[in-house]
């Protein structure tokens, strides 16, 4: 079986356009608080979701837009939820970090690591009620240090649960370089807990698709969990308006009030000079990483797939136009919903 290049491209493109609309609505102040995008993770989500069928379950983290869009949830329902409208997917009660669709067995949580136990429970229910069905857990590499996720990999392996643990590794958790706080290597760790484990380039949807196919086959055959590690980049940082990205994009405005106190703190006693120098070095390193993050456009998963399409430009344009229309229609519906709000 081969992946359907256009189908995957369409999914990724749709998620990206949807999130561009979300970004606009967020910038306009129609969406509140911490808007974490899936931008940069599209190939991972598309490559995995392509194998999902009805009855399979999704345990989603705080970046649930792409999985929800690609699972086929109505875009207007999602936008209305993000805007807190009564007509939203969850009546405006959950919001973008807490999305639920019972029909799709899709549930998200903003608690880092919580998708591990969630997927195990979905898988246990599948063993009883939906033979051959599987559960997918999405999480970041930062979550790999959360105890409940480690317990879940063990549980899934010990009970041969049909779980696919998808670790989307962008190397950073909020502002912290995960390498600085993570010992050992994640694949070895997952294997130590008894899971089958592979690593792929998460910006290459073909690679993800193939690895995910094996994972789904194994899980459906009752051979237990797979740990699928996929690397990626978050070009918008942790969430829209990420403070570190604001600092590197607009240093004069964003750093003005911060530099004075920082220099004062670092130069007026405290620990030894060398320790303070190390601190300043890692602060600079943190900003440097943020600057790199947004330069990674060459790794853009959607652009990569676009280059590979074997359809004519006209056909591609038509595909894109259809998606653009779908997104625009959803935005218009959401804005009408906003106007109708009492």
């Amino acid at each position: 079986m081969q992946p359907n290049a256009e189908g995957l491209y369409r999914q990724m493109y749709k998620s990206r356009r949807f999130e561009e609309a979300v970004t606009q609505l967020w910038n306009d102040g129609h969406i509140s608080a911490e808007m974490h995008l899936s931008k940069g993770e599209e190939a991972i989500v598309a490559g995995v979701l392509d194998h999902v069928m009805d009855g399979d379950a999704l345990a989603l983290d705080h970046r649930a837009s792409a999985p929800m869009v690609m699972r086929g949830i109505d875009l207007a329902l999602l936008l209305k939820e993000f805007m807190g409208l009564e007509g939203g997917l969850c009546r405006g009660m959950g919001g973008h970090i807490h999305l639920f669709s019972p029909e799709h067995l899709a549930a998200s949580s903003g608690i880092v690591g919580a998708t591990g136990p969630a997927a195990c429970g979905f898988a246990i229910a599948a063993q009883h009620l939906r033979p051959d069905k599987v559960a997918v857990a999405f999480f970041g590499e930062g979550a790999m240090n959360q105890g409940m996720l480690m317990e879940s990999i063990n549980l899934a392996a010990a009970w041969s649960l049909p779980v696919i643990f998808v670790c989307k590794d962008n190397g950073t958790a909020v502002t912290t370089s995960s390498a600085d706080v993570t010992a050992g290597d994640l694949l070895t760790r997952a294997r130590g807990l008894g899971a089958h484990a592979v690593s792929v380039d998460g910006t290459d949807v073909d690679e993800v698709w193939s690895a995910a196919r094996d994972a789904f086959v194994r899980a459906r055959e009752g051979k237990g969990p797979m740990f699928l590690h996929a690397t990626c980049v978050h070009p918008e940082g942790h969430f829209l308006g990420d403070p570190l990205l604001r600092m590197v994009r607009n240093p004069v405005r964003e750093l003005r009030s911060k530099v004075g106190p920082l220099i004062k703190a670092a130069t007026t006693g405290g620990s030894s000079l060398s320790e303070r120098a190390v601190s300043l070095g890692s602060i600079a390193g943190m900003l440097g990483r943020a600057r790199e993050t947004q330069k990674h456009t060459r790794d853009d998963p959607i652009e990569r797939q676009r280059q590979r399409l074997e359809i004519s430009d006209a056909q591609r344009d038509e595909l894109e136009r259809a998606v653009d229309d779908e997104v625009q229609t959803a935005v218009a519906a959401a804005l009408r919903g906003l106007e109708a709000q009492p």
Partner: protein
Amino acid sequence: MKTMTFAGAIEDALMKAMSDDPRVVIFGEDVQALRMNLYAKFGEMRVRPTPISESAFLGAAVTAAMAGLRPVVEIMMIDFVAVAIDALVNQAAKLEVFSGGRWKAPMVVRASCGGGYGDGGQHEQTLWGWLAQVPGMKVVVPSNPADAGGLMLSAIEDEGPVLFMEHKLLADYWIDALANAGRINLEYDIPEAGARGEVPKTWEPIPIGEAKMLRDGDDLTMVSLGVSVHRCLQAAEELAKSGVHAGVIDLRTVTPLDTDAICRAVEKTDRLLVVDEDYKHFSLSGELAAIVLEAGLGAKFARVCVEDTIPFDRRREAQALPNVPRIVEAATKLVSR
């Protein structure tokens, strides 16, 4: 006169405590960014960025404290303490009694809390009543910069575990990072006097367990904490216009509760209105009703609290959190009873 922001006051108090006492260490997620100045000044041994492993580092803080350090350990939002609750409920809070009084865990748990910026019901809770329920825990909730700095010093000096809760509407950097995030087109009901205010020239510890009477009034006593204190003061102003004189007490500490101050005030007014951003049922507000009854006071009682899971939608969220109209309405009803 010296003024500071709420967050600035906490940082200043920590600067002092860490300069005075090398045993004071900080650990938590992203502290190299969130506590950048302290990190630059005291280095990574004393300001340690952690993995997202709350049960490990909160648990480790307990024994680090038992073995001589004074950790100030950070839980980014109090909601997340749920993944690590064993460290507090079964370990830190039990130690003093279990060891026959021979061993204590002088640690501070610093956590942001509270809502009002549309982050949803998993990121906007206060949970102070829940955490205060366990014997052996102390819980402080400052409402202004001066109290924040003074209570932080006391929390660090305290011989047992103290939970120090910082409301996100008061701390400018949280609103900047989580709510505005570079946008200028949104509004938040931030109490000015809580977000910035006068602080003492040199920091002195403010005793844990002492409430503060902020306003006298003969008709009813409002008891509150955190952001809601400011809502009460505003409501009291409005009530005064219609001839109702409401007193306002800022608890500042949830536990140990300043029972005397509350009972003294309620004895005079015979009416108690609790305004609490925590959940209504099985709660601090219920506890306050109980202590008044136990003291033999037959006061009339009402409460304005969070009654259900906080809605994500900012319009409904604003109704769910204690607000001035709800307080005025409850007070008006209470005085006419």
